[in-house]
């Protein structure tokens, strides 16, 4: 099997104040193939967010190995991690995480800036990405002038503008109403099906998890179910 993500015995231990230790992950192993749409579920404190952070190269594991597209990432430097985040991964967050008082277009341009894409090309690709999420007319609006659904669509456009292999969505519908949630999930689904982008979605809503073809359940730092 072509394993796009291969996590092997991942451990993550946080130490609080240097005394107490919190075992967030206790040996998680998981493989995800190219083009999969995986939902990660579990109650809060189950370690799913920690797992997402590791896959998203925002953090490194205490023990174990993790490779993304064949690159071993568990021991990379902050600069190398930043490069992988930039080129291979797009993030969609629950609270959108757009730059305030900055236009939708400029928000989408951000990953391209750090990828050193020339200005004209940057603008063109960002406009295309916004068109794809149906926000072409609002691209010059400031992010805080947009509704929640629109903001999340800007975030999706930002996540995909650099043509990543993987999009990580952390409770993307957590702050949205049902109708808007369906809209957003349809866009995500479309990205997976039409562009073949691997999607890993963290959610605790069964309705949202249904969009995924595979559900992985976490509890107490372990995977308890994978279906």
């Amino acid at each position, binding site marked *: 099997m072509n394993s796009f993500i291969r996590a092997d015995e991942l451990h993550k231990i946080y130490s609080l104040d240097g005394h107490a230790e919190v075992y967030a992950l206790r040996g998680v192993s998981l493989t995800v193939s190219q083009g999969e749409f995986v939902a990660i579920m579990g109650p809060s404190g189950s370690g799913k967010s920690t797992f997402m952070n590791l896959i998203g190269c*925002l953090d490194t594991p205490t023990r174990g190995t993790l490779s993304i597209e064949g690159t071993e990432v568990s021991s990379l430097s902050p600069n190398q991690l*930043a490069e992988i985040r930039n080129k291979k991964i797009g993030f969609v967050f629950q609270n959108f995480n757009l730059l305030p008082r900055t236009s939708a277009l400029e928000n989408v341009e*951000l990953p391209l800036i750090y990828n050193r894409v020339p200005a004209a090309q940057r603008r063109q690709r960002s406009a295309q990405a916004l068109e794809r999420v149906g926000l072409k007319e609002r691209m010059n609006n400031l992010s805080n002038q947009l509704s929640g659904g629109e903001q999340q669509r800007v975030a999706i456009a930002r996540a995909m503008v650099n043509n990543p292999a993987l999009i990580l969505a952390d409770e993307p519908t957590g702050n949205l109403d049902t109708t808007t949630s369906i809209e957003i999930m349809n866009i995500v689904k479309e990205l997976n099906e039409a562009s073949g982008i691997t999607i890993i979605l963290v959610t605790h809503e069964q309705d949202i998890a249904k969009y995924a073809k595979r559900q992985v359940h976490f509890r107490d730092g372990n995977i308890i179910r994978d279906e």
Partner: protein
Amino acid sequence: MELLFTIRVALRAIMRNKLRSLLTVLGVVIGVCAVITMVNIGSGAQISIEKAISGLGTNMLIVIPGSMTKGGMRTGFGTVTTLIDEDAQAIRDECPTVQLVSPVVSTAAQVVFQNQNWGTSIMGTDPEFQRIKNWSLARGEFFTMQDVKAATKVCVLGKSVAEKLFGTQNPVGQIVRVKRIPFRVIGLLTEKGQTTFGQDQDDTVVIPYTTAQKRLMGITYLSMIMASAVSNERIPDAQDQITTLLRQRHHIPKGEDDDFTVRNLADLTATFTIITGILTLLLGSIASISLVVGGIGIMNIMLVSVTERTREIGIRMSVGAKPGDILLQFLLEAVLLSLIGGGVGIVLGIGLTSIIAYFADWPTPISFVAILVSSLFAAVVGIFFGLYPARKASRMNPIEALRYE
């Protein structure tokens, strides 16, 4: 990230909080302004002192008869009669670094015009005196070499003397009496003012030195010889040449003290230059302290800004900003702040200098060195005080930064 783009981003961040940026920058503005103003005032003072000293005469050297050792007793300055007219002629003929020479005899006397009288100094000299002293005439003319040769009874009045004796009346052509000898006034000197030491240079009557020697004082020696070197740089050479020549002429054996002294005003100028230089440095360093304080202000605000924008830093990191990118962004913001402050400070400093110069009636050289140094200093302050907050920003953990509320 391209530098120009980063500058634009930084500028936008600065403009977003206009009032805060303004207050932040104020420290640097005041610092740079103070440095420039202080340095310019310092060099203005230096120039005006140099001008006052050069008003005493250009590249001037003074030869005064000095002490003489006779049987172990050494007499004071000016008590000997060894300096004579021929010495002046010899200096003129044999010292190539000496440009002008003029013999001087001086005495004090009562000058009388009709029912007015005034006690003043009588200076006997020759026409070159006028050039050595850089002293032009307000009316009439100076006496000539012929007057000197013939010891004619003519005089040129200093402004103070003319005012005491004639009031507003034109003195040229009138007859004044000095020791009951009538002198015809042929010229009036322009006002030269006080020396740096408070002596009124205009309180004098200038006559041919031969007239003073023969008719007023009955002597054959000189009170002193004034000379000027060909240039400022050649003053020491001229001093040496005069000394060698006069020792030879006065038959002073090796190892014996000179019976004369050659003084120059360059030493005086040098002393004042050192003093004003020290003052400028002092004022400049005090002003620099405010520049450092301004830098601390920038650091303070940058630290606040980094904390406030933790979330932004997290977002940037999550889309692939490297620690170096974040560092550069915040560093550039700090440097831009201090450079803007520096720019405003330079403009204000130049303005303030001009205003002070206008009211103090001083020359205002705008020191480009001071401008260059203070803008450089402003940039260094920006880098130095911006580095710590920028490093703090670049070392944030992206997860914590993203969760920051």
